[in-house]
């Protein structure tokens, strides 16, 4: 299974990663090698097999809707690269 450079650019954008032009051929080969290997799953007949996302059969783990202590506001902001007036600060999102 070969992945194209156009596809790499597309998934790089979705991943918010930049693949440098001089690294493109390298990434193309590495990803294609791995995808070729995992294509062995196509050998299996999987009709009617229930997918398994989790090994432990726990469903709908609820708790009582009670107020409990949570992380203090200043602690939640303590690692922020930039904060102001009790909020995380980011570059302008809506352009003028």
């Amino acid at each position, binding site marked *: 299974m070969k*992945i194209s450079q156009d*596809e*790499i650019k*597309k*998934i*790089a954008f*979705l*991943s*918010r*990663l*930049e*693949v440098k032009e001089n690294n493109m051929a390298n*990434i193309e080969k*590495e*990803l294609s*090698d*791995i*995808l070729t*290997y*995992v294509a*062995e*799953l*196509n050998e*299996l007949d*999987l009709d009617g*097999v*229930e*997918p*398994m*996302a*989790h*090994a*432990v059969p*726990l469903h709908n*783990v609820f*708790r009582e809707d009670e107020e409990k202590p949570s*992380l203090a506001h200043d*602690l*939640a902001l*303590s*690692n*922020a*690269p*930039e904060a102001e007036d009790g909020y*995380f600060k*980011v*570059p*302008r*999102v809506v*352009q003028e």
Partner: protein
Amino acid sequence: MATIHELHTQLVNKNISAVELTQAVIAHKAKVEPIVHAYLSDSHESALATAKAVDEAIAKGETISPLAGIPGAIKDNICIKDEPATCASRMLEHFIPPYNASVIEQLQNQHFVNLGKLNMDEFAMGGSTENSALAKTANPWNTDCVPGGSSGGSAAAVSSGSAIWALGSDTGGSIRQPASFCGVVGLKPTYGNVSRYGLIAFASSLDQIGPLTRDVTDAALVLNAISGHDPKDSTSIPGNRVDYTTALVNDVKNLKIGVPKEFFGDGLSADVRKAMDEAIETYKKLGAEIVEVSLPNSKYALSAYYIIALAEASSNLARYDGVSYGMRVAADNLVEMSTKTRTEGFGPEVQRRILLGTYVLSSGYYDAYYLKALKVRRLIKNEFDEAFSKVDLLLSPTAPNTAYKFGEKVNDPLAMYLEDICTVPANLAGIPGISIPAGMSSNNLPIGLQLLGPAMGEETLLRAAFTFEQARPDCQLVAPTGEVSL
């Protein structure tokens, strides 16, 4: 060999104080760390303060818990309040968690002495610790060789004596394989036996915290401390846990041990095969029944594992966007800021895995890769269930080869992934596994024996591992620098 249980006896008998013990391990650490580099940060001051409190408790005649005052260390993807948790990544190089992981709360209740945080592959992605962005950890048995990974710092610290025990995490073998490479015991508990709250996520349906120790008794003691139901982890298994030290019984007479032939494939080195043959002979002599079993779908486990692990990783690591914590590279708009931050903050292997994970989840490929992998996961789980209806345990090598040289595989990601072939099936099925020392290769590197059990079958694992350890003192070796002088 300084173990938790032996040192506990010495503390209780007042042969040594907890402060003296901590000072001795810190002094030993100062000698070996310039060669091994297992640590990313130190917390000697708080370690000595805890040790002092333990000594005061002993002086008052109080009963101390088994881990009290015994110096250990923690993999750097487990959060300790006000201590760095870097995940060996530039992205989190300056991150200081504002809260404790649940396992840390549990260990603090036992007055554990924490010497610091341990090196690892960046975000636990790798099998050699070479993917750390912050330090290069060497194998204490041969410093030209990797310690394994991703919990390479944990294994190297315990092996070199710079910690008596350590916590690691295992997503596809990241406790068991470095334990094997460094000649120590590594236990991956059943998925859900130990809380993941405060473990920085790699692949949430596969990650599990566990101990790396110098012997099987110590593994049971640390598991006692960290296991249990945690309301803060919704995948945590409800109910009380047993006292795992009651499983340390020197007897395997009525046990049936299966040997899955698929785990003894082409890539297996002659030295590892020989050690496995000897281990099987040992178990036979001890009265266990050995039967060959077949897990035909396990040959697909690696492919299913990498698709699922990378898909989950791409989703989990989306949170590192430069907004709420971690690194930020400034830019004029949000998309550019995230892109620059992630491109500079993540190393090559992490970026490769995010790209692949995004690909297998993307529109048009979801059914072809991700959904298929989840179905194969079901087949593998069913196969284990069937095997465990016939046998109590499965025996295999932990890794097909012993520790390799730095740089040998790091430029070939697929070759590196193939080394995980014996360990990933347990993570897919959520079952427990242990790696114990099973001898040395011809070039004097440790070989690990892996035992796998059914979900919540840690007691049987510990019993069989303990019995092997008692029968084979020839396998209980200490690395050249590993003897701590007290």
